[in-house]
């Protein structure tokens, strides 16, 4: 069964994009979003992040950071990440504004806070289609290494869901098996589009 997946993190840069890139490579139907108000990228110090609007092209951010401090951003991996991202899609998208993108079957979040925001947002939308949406959270730290692992885990789980005859009937099993195998805790809930 072909499911529509959405990968969601805060800024739609690292974790969600890592998973997006991976799932896309595997031929899954995937989109990605951030739930933050703005897109934030680490800056020279914790107090000076680089802030962009959602919708700003990754390429533009890349140019911007290159101009600011190519050494720093190369070292912390931002440039590579942005380059990867720009190859996946044009610009970061905000979850709360994605109503036009249609209903997703699986929404994968990488942080409980994001999970809650997604749930909250879905709660506030109109239920029209009576279409089930599985919202899953897997906590992943927001760094490149963890994101890479998180992406693989997301892919694994999404593939399991995809393979299931009907995930609705076996979701508890799927998640339990996943948890046992990867020794990671998941959280999930159901919402309706």
């Amino acid at each position: 069964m072909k499911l529509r997946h959405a990968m969601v993190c805060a800024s739609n840069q690292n974790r969600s994009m890592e998973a997006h890139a991976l799932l896309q490579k595997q031929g899954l139907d995937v989109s990605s979003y951030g739930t933050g108000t703005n897109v934030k990228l680490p800056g020279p110090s914790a107090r000076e992040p680089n802030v962009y609007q959602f919708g700003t092209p990754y390429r533009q951010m890349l140019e911007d950071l290159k101009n600011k401090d190519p050494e720093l951003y190369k070292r912390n991996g931002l440039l590579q990440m942005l380059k990867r991202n720009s190859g996946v899609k044009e610009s970061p998208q905000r979850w709360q504004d994605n109503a036009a993108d249609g209903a997703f079957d699986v929404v994968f979040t990488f942080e409980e806070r994001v999970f809650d925001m997604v749930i909250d947002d879905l709660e506030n939308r109109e239920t029209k289609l009576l279409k089930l949406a599985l919202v899953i959270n897997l906590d992943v730290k927001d760094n490149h290494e963890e994101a890479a692992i998180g992406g693989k885990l997301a892919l694994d789980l999404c593939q399991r869901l995809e393979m299931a005859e009907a995930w609705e009937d076996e979701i508890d099993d799927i998640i339990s098996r996943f948890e046992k195998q990867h020794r990671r805790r998941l959280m999930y809930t159901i919402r309706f589009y």
Partner: protein
Amino acid sequence: MQQGRMAGVRDQAVALLNEVKMTGETSAKVDLLKSLMELVLHRDPSSLLPEFVPYLMELQTETGSPIRKYLAEMIEGIGTQHVDFVPIMVPVLLALLRDSAPAVARRAVTSGSNIFRIVLEQVALQGVYSGQVERRLLDCWNWMTFFKDAVYSLAFQHGNDGIRLLAVKFVESTILLFTPDPSGSLPNQQSSDGSSKGFNMAWVAGGHPVLDANALGQEASKSLGLLLNQLRAPEASSLPCLVAIVIINSLAGIAKRRPSMFGRILPVLLALAPNCEPIQGSQIASVVHELKSAFLSLLKSNQPGALPWRDRLVAALRSMNMGDVADQTIRQLERALRVAERNRTAKDVRVSAKERVPPQVSTSQVSTIQITTSVPVDPSLRKRPLPQENGSQQSTDFDELSGKRSRHDALPNTAQIEATPAISNGTGNVMANTAVFGDHSIAPLISAIATLLAQGERGANSVQILIDTLTPDILTEIVIANMVHLPNSPQFYPSVNPAANWGQVNLPHSGPAEIAVNSFTAPPMETAAASQPYPPPLDPSRDLRKDPRRMEARPAGPSEGVTALLIPKLEVETNVVLAAGLSGATAQAGASLNLESTSNAPTNLRDPRATFHLQANNRQGGPSPIQVKQEPKQEPIEAEHLGNSDPALPLSPPPQTGISLAQVPLPAITLQPLTGEQGAALSTASLVRILENHKTIAAAGGADLRIALLARLVAQSYEDTESLKVLQKHVLADYHAHKGHELGLHVLYQLFADHACSDVDQPTSTSAAYDQFLLSLAQGLRDKISAGDKSLSRLLGEAPAVPMTTLKLVEELCNPASGADSSKSEHVTAGLTALWSLILQRPPTRDTCLKMALKCTVHESDDTRAKAIRLVANKLYPLNFVAQSIEDFATASLLSVVDHQSGDAAERETIEEDNSGKTELTNGDQRTSNGAAPMDVTVDEEAHQPTTTARTSEVTLSEAQRCMSLFFALCTKKHALLRQLFQVYGRSPKAVKQAVHRHIPILFRTIGSSSQELLQLIADPPTGSEYLLLQVLHTLTDGTEPSKELISTVKTLYDVKSQDATYLIPVLSSLSKDEVTPIFPRLVDLSSDKFQAALARILQGSAHTGPALTPAEVLIALHGIDPHKDAVPLKKVMDACSTCLQQRTVFTQQVLAKVLNQLVEQTPLPLLFMRTVIQAVNSFPSLESFVMEILSRLVSKQIWKLPKLWMGFLKCAHQTMPKSFHVLLQLPTAQLEDALKGFPSLKEPLAAHADQPSVRPTVPRSSLVLLGLSQDTPAVLEAAPVGQEPSAETPKQ
């Protein structure tokens, strides 16, 4: 054409359906079904659905589950758009619910849920608006109840989890649907509450023929109990986590949207905290999380019902290690509350500043008001820096709403009264004002409330108590009375309205007004908080204390509102009167639906439950826009009256109402009488608004009534041509979607009825309006006409009368100006279709229309003519009552060209004939229309005028075709007419004959060779038609096998009548050898070209029997002709032979050899035998040796005894020398001598030949002597005494 296209769609659909049945592959089937759905549901649902739905339902037996799943999807698609099919489809849906494949069952639940909601909504709306529910809809509803019960059973039993999820969701949505939504959305309003999608059980709370709000509420309550039970032990222990999550989520959603259920739901949820112990499952963490977010969202939701639970919610969250989040939420809530408080105070201060507007300002000083207000001179304003006016103020206030709301909830105060949706409109309803103030009974109450309010917070509580004791009716009146204080300018609203209510302000409540009134205890809308005439409880400014009177007055007329009101003046008046007159209940019921209040009123009359609504309407405004113009006149009286009553009020701070009237120059504004133009503009504008609202009405099921009322409304104001124009524009804008046909007809009937009832003496203005409306409607339709559009015909067919002007239009349609582009051809089609339906449906106009149609059949344009002829011949001619006229016309037009007349003369003739009969009809028509002037003008004056086209004396070919086409077309329908054609053919001019010849192939192939009339005609053709007959015979036999009847008829013709074999030629190929042989001499007797044609047919033969005669047989038959006996000149036979032999490919040398072989055996030899031999040897020199053989056989047959042949023999021998020498030498000496005598030149070579050593011995001696090769033979002399002389003459060698 449209029909054709639709038929095409149907064919396509049928093809797809068949393909679906034939295809084995599941996915392919689904794809095909998708295409099928596209056609059936979107291209032509009205005609295809009834046919296809049953077939589609058969798919439930398909083995592939994706197909059944898609079936469920299709059911949803069809059911949500076409409720009529629900009863057919739901049984299938019920079966799908129990499907073995979970995916199918899931889809079935989803589909059914959506249909359920739609059906419920329609049932509710129809009941509310029309007081009854149609049977079919009731049927649907019953089926959906079955469905509901089936899904409920799925929700509460253990089975497939995925299905259960959806079933639980369905239970949730039904609970929400079956209970009134306190946030109070009304019909037409799309509420933000997703699951109920705008439907609110509150609509039917007042009573409904089918839906019993109480029973449904009880059912909802019971379902809720079942849901709750799921979460209690022991049920919960076996609950899968997945289902638990959904149930918790659903319950939280219900609690949030239905505060009344809060108390039932929360205890159960709270009992689950902190660890959801009763529920067991691997994913318990997720369940716990769900519970947490449910608690949080309930905490945030800030429902009034939630307040008592707040502490317990926080405690529960703490126990779940969410204490900090809970505290944070609480803090946020409190902060918001404080902000709201502060803002409110600020606003009050600002208000106090504003009330510095000089109270004595009146209409004449409007400009002063502006100046005063726009220059804030008040010191208090400067003291307290406030956010800027309006614009930025707006944003600030959005932020404060949550806080403000909570405060009101906690301390319900008077704001609630004032904030009932009823007042929130702000159109400054003057009419409401006057109406209410005409009613003295409430004046004391109002003043009492005002007094209480003036006391601030303390008084507010008393007001609350007072209000609780009031009946809804009186309360409503108080509210209405206060509406005058609402600002007129909507832009004022954002500054005082919570954002959450913004939508409701723009689209305020409509429909049953009791909701608004009865439910004011429900969460209020702080609509006009700022304009409340009570002093702010906190931090009142110094000014306020100083002059509370002014303070109160101020909010009644916010200066922004006034400003907007007065500029520009005319616009304001428009606003006011529009609001007052048109939408009497606008303030109460809002712009969107209330525009229909005029049309709703009569409905409500029939509906006792709506009395209140109606009352509101009547009280507030004129029910019809027509009355608008009169309203202003009443104003002064009312205003005066008000002024008088004011002093009578008890001693107290002057009641807000009085002050507001004194200060805000509203009544003065409305005193301006409207000019006629303004009045007209207003009523037009109002009509436009009514018209634009058609969709909502249609959705509510009241479309029919609306149309009837609209028509009456418009028709009554027919003098105002503008309104007719407006309606017409609306109708034509989207003829089908706007039910243009129905609406137009209603108006027409109305006008017609008015006209029929009107006095005969009066100027026939209704009649003129009728004519004009119909004509312009028809014109509009004409301009929009698309291929196959039947709208025009329908309109004309069903209109009460069709005046001549409209018929003229149709005529123009049918006769596009020459040189018009091809797009006009659609007009022609439409025009002709209209004529057709007029002829069928309107006997009085029948003759006129028929005449028009007939005129088109001789139209110059080929296209028009072809179309008209198709119509006349195929559709009209079969009708008994017009057949004769058509025939007469066609005949006349045929004769006109035949007899060199001008075509129009004939037309004129028939027209005049028609008219005599028609005048009588007209009279009859007049009588039926009650003595009024006839609207159906049936006499076409212009038709009398002969068209003055210059005619050449000669009829041209195209002219002939133009006038004859119809006749030909009729001939195909009525074969008997052919005789006429045959009769006139003989005397026709050349062009006409040509035209006939051109038509013959098509005409007669259509008629066929088995038509009895045609056969009779052939058997007995009129004189002069011979050539035509031949042509016909050729056509009939060309390429096809002529029928037996035809052959026998032709033979009869030949035998009995004409003896002219020419007629036989066409059928020759079908004749057998025995039949051909006797007539063969006759064929030979024909002219050469005819014989050739006959020959070809004979040789060609028919496909079945082969050629009648083989080439050899033909030649033998030719030779068998006896010129005397058969009466054929020998010359003809010879020519015939030559003709044959010229066809070397047919009459080959083999054929010739065979023929000669046979002929030579005949006794006596055929006369032309030798001639043929010579010709044969000429044609084929290679036959020479064969011919020599023939010659020697002739010698043995003593050919010399037949003198004619003998000559031929010698000639042949001469031609074929030297080969013929040995034959010659076989001749007896006497004959040889004869031969040499005839052809002396033969002698020498012959002698040389005979002298050869090999030959000489075989030659009789006498012959040798004759040739001079031997001299003294007496035998020679004896034998050929005559031969001596020549031999003597022959020089010896």
